[in-house]
């Protein structure tokens, strides 16, 4: 479904990603891990089209999207939950969620129900300005917003950051449910070992801008092995 081949990307002139090869099969949940600053966020931005690769190619669903713009990719079915709290602060919670829908022609009530089911607070605060939500609530909103677009490929950048433990567990389960029920393919970045173990079918490890290793299910199950990639 997604294939990166020798991708190199840079902010201005400083190269951040170097020669990244990576692939995600249809229906898979793939994790990306690595220490701070190795380029995980940059990788997801490049996949989303917010950063143009200077070398290499990206193909999605069999078509080459290396030079497609972000909004084109979004319309092609890639959804993105940015790291941090990139909600639209001056739009209401409801409008933020509606933004997730812009790429679809009509809204799907059942998706809303599902999201409100996961995060009831979003329904309670529907008309509150998103910038005034608590940190964790904003993160929930970002997730909910991406889900209404019902993407084929969902990119998640540290979805558990700032979220209370009970909901973190719930999110990992929900993602799997979404993956099972809707067949959504997921590529996600995480620091939380628990989440990686819980969610990922497969996992890439990054170091200094490039993919250094691929971890299969058995390695992922091994807590110490993962810790090694994240810690050293």
């Amino acid at each position, binding site marked *: 479904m997604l294939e990166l081949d020798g991708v190199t990307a840079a902010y201005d002139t400083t190269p951040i990603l170097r020669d990244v090869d990576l692939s995600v099969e249809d229906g898979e949940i793939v994790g990306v891990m690595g220490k701070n600053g190795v380029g995980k966020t940059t990788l997801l931005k490049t996949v989303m089209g917010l950063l143009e690769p200077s070398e290499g190619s990206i193909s999605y669903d069999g078509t080459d999207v290396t030079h497609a*713009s*972000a909004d084109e990719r979004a319309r092609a079915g890639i959804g993105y939950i940015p790291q941090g709290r990139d909600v*639209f602060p001056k739009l209401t919670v409801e409008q933020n969620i509606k933004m997730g829908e*812009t790429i679809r022609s009509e809204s799907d009530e059942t998706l809303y129900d599902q999201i409100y089911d996961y995060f009831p607070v979003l329904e309670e605060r529907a008309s509150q300005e998103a910038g005034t939500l608590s940190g964790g609530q904003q993160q929930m909103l970002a997730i909910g917003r991406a889900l209404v677009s019902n993407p084929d490929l969902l990119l998640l950048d540290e979805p558990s950051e700032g979220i209370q433990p009970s909901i973190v567990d719930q999110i990992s389960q929900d993602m799997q449910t979404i993956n099972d029920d809707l067949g959504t393919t997921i590529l996600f970045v995480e620091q939380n070992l628990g989440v990686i173990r819980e969610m990922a079918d497969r996992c890439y490890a990054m170091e200094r801008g490039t993919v250094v290793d691929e971890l299969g299910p058995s390695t992922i199950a091994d807590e110490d092995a993962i810790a090694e990639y994240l810690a050293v």
Partner: protein
Amino acid sequence: MVNGINLALQFLDSFAFIVLAAAGLAIIFGIMGVINLAHGEFILIGAYTATLAVTQLGLPLVVAMVVGGLVTGLFGILTERVIISGAWPNYISQRTLGRDVIDPLYDRLADSMVATFGLSLILTQGARIRFGNSIDQIATPFGAISYGAFSYSTYRIVLAGVSIGLLLATYYLFTRTDFGMRARATIQDKETAQAMGVNTDRMYMLTFGIGSALAGLTGALFAPVISMQPTLGDQFLVEAFVAVVVGGPSVVLGTALSGGVLGAILATFSNLYGTFIGRIALLVAALIALRFLPDGITGFIEQLRQRRQESD
């Protein structure tokens, strides 16, 4: 003597002037974070286009006014592509130098001011070179209504009506439609909006175009009643800036409210003490409003609402 009808009509007059002066600026400033010092020249473009469309092309006045707005809107889009976003120069430089030469001016208040100041010099002088120091003016339609010893231009009442209509339409567009939501989302976080499938380039372009078209329409609407010369836009600037900022964060609502408040002050003081005092009163009221409502009127209303809810 304070005559009730006089005062009411003058209030409508001031209200329309302030609201129409401010509307285009408010959108471009409030939504895009660009202070457009060429706002007056956008008004000029609208006024000249409408006037020339009547005198040269013989178009009916109403059509000419719409044309004035549209032409200015198109000019705004051109301005946005070339200067504000730098999209066209960057397209060329990408292919020749391999890099962008212009950073978009969104949310760069001072830089956008300098750039649009430069643009305003070019436009004013350009109009002067092309059309001379003035062009012939068109007559005011609709005649006058009179009451007692007083009479009043019907057209000014029409203007008040139009200004309210434009406000409502703009308010609806930016708060109630998907377009408005996307435009606001684009300005708040461009990358995330893109990731939501919004063509942000087009949003910037259209928003700027709509703001410009409103400025142009203002010029067209006032074309019959103001002197047609290249600096005609200047007379709108002060009221426009004051109204936008006194209005506060909710662009359209703010403009309407500040148009109301400032219009009432201007009308009352001009009526009682003459034009000079009216003007000073308007400005001093604006200073005081900004000092005591640093978030503008709509910011203040927001606070009031919160406080009321608290005490419930």
